[in-house]
């Protein structure tokens, strides 16, 4: 079963890569997102919520995959970039925009908030990207465990800063955020993220990320600016994490610093590893499955995390997603190397 699935996925991979204009795939994905939004009247609120969370998790996992899976840099602060995006967007839609244009109606579905939501998402992503540049610039000279420590520290700094900034609610967080996120924005965002990552990696330029991951010394000797590639991956990853944070804030209407702690980062890492480091489609599928798993386990209340952890461990050992993770490159070396590279 795993094998069949894996073959299908690799066919999917290569067909996307070989499309003369993958932009068609992008356009098709956005149309699907729009259609989904058009049908939103028939989808019950709970299902809508789950789809939103799944799409946001896809954005988070696929963007972290660029840093961890493709470029091989361990980052423990993806949730912090998400927080930067979430708070930036919440300030924009909650304070800045209504102050600038007080005569427009600012509700979640109002034309004004929907029309301004794209720029809000882009600004949130850009601010998170700048945060990524600030952290990544100096720290990406470090490797492995040291980089992990720096990113862990940065994540904590962001959380503590937010907790102690009264202007954004401190530990109480921000509430009453416009419910501007809908199926179109979330699913469309996931489609754009997936497209960007696959278009980026399936190119001569994108092989630079892989070269850096496989052998930094050799990559440098072949004229590849390794620091630049690492920082680029980090900034792009942070940008999309910021967009995901903005979508999240406008979906749940409430954010607090605790929602972006280390555990949140860790959850995204699990999605990336289970999906197969360096396999964007696999990572997207695993993000969706883990979102669903979280929902199914909701009834177990306090035992939820115990069962969740158990399932993750069992997944790691037996790897039923073998198809999605043909190799856990560094974790389980040389187990099953596939030469399938488009």
């Amino acid at each position: 079963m795993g094998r069949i699935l894996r073959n299908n996925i690799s066919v999917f991979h290569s067909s996307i890569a070989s499309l003369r204009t993958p932009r068609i795939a992008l356009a098709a994905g956005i149309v699907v997102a729009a259609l989904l939004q058009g049908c939103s009247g028939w989808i019950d609120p709970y299902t809508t919520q789950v789809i939103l969370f799944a799409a946001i998790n896809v954005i988070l996992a696929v963007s972290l995959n660029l840093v961890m899976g493709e470029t091989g840099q361990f980052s423990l602060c993806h949730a912090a970039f998400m927080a930067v995006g979430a708070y930036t967007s919440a300030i924009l839609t909650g304070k800045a925009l209504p102050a600038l244009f007080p005569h427009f109606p600012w509700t979640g579905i109002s034309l004004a908030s929907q029309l301004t939501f794209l720029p809000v998402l882009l600004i949130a992503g850009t601010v998170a990207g700048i945060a990524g540049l600030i952290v990544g610039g100096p720290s990406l000279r470090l490797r492995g465990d040291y980089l992990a420590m720096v990113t862990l520290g940065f994540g904590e700094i962001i959380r503590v800063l937010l907790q102690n900034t009264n202007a954004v609610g401190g530990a109480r967080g921000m509430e009453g955020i416009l419910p501007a996120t809908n199926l179109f924005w979330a699913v469309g965002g996931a489609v754009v993220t997936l497209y960007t990552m696959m278009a980026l990696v399936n190119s001569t330029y994108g092989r630079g990320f892989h070269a850096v991951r496989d052998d930094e010394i050799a990559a440098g000797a072949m004229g590849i600016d390794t620091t630049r590639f690492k920082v680029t991956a980090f900034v792009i990853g942070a940008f999309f994490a910021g967009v995901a944070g903005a979508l999240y804030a406008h979906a749940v209407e409430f954010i607090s610093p605790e929602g972006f702690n280390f555990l949140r980062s860790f959850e995204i890492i699990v999605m990336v590893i289970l999906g197969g480091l360096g396999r964007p489609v696999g990572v997207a599928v695993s993000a969706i499955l883990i979102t669903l798993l979280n929902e199914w386990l909701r009834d177990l209340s306090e035992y939820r995390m115990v069962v969740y952890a158990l399932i993750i461990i069992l997944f790691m050992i037996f790897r039923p997603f073998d198809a999605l993770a043909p190799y856990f490159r560094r974790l389980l070396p040389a187990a099953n190397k596939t030469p399938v590279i488009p």
Partner: protein
Amino acid sequence: MSEDPAKEVPLLEVRNCSLRFGGIAALSRVSLRIGHGELVGLIGPNGAGKTSLFNILTGVYRPTEGEVLFEGRPTAGIATHRINHLGMARTFQNIRLFGSLNVRMNVRTSFIARLSNGLLGTVRRGKSFRAEEESVQEEGRRLLEYFGLQEVATHSSRSLPYGDQRRLEIVRALATKPRLLLLDEPAAGMNPTEKQELKRLIGRIRSEFGTAILLVEHDMKVVMGICERLVVLDQGKVISSGTPAEVRTDPKVIAAYLGATHAVQGASS
């Protein structure tokens, strides 16, 4: 090639380079010149400082004293990838291919530094991106074909036989269009047939690409057979240099390789 290389600016000039790690002198006052298109062999026993010199040339280490000039320009303090852009490419003693990439993609990484389409162009996938991808693909294909690796182009680079991995590393370095190719013990671990093939390969690189080569090698048979000039390092010093015939009979070289007693016997006999 001019008869007297001293009259023109050499491709590479190493001037009195020393490298010390604390109290240990890995290299002391090493000087070396390589002319355009020349094939120079750098030999010496284990620990003589060959790899240290290599690492100075490629910008991994900075010499404690002295300087390295590439086409008359000092290379001190220039990052490794920029040294490659200047026109110096290398292979590694322990093969360093990109293991997750196939043979074709390994070669393609060498074109990254010269791409005109960066991040945005790649994501946008416009006309110029597609044209560039096609030209890069074609250039890589021609290189692989020329060196007989086209049949295995889609294989994982790790699955190749040892000799082919070495060859691929050389092709990958050549794809960056160097004027000087530094080969670090390319014959290490090769069987006699593969060594013969390597010699032919080096000959073809010179005739076809006109690339100057600095060959660091343990294997005397390989070096003596193809190099026109040899430099012998021992304990961080250049102890001899000249044609293979001159170097072979130099008592200092024999002493370095076989020990002083043999040299005395060799000289007396």
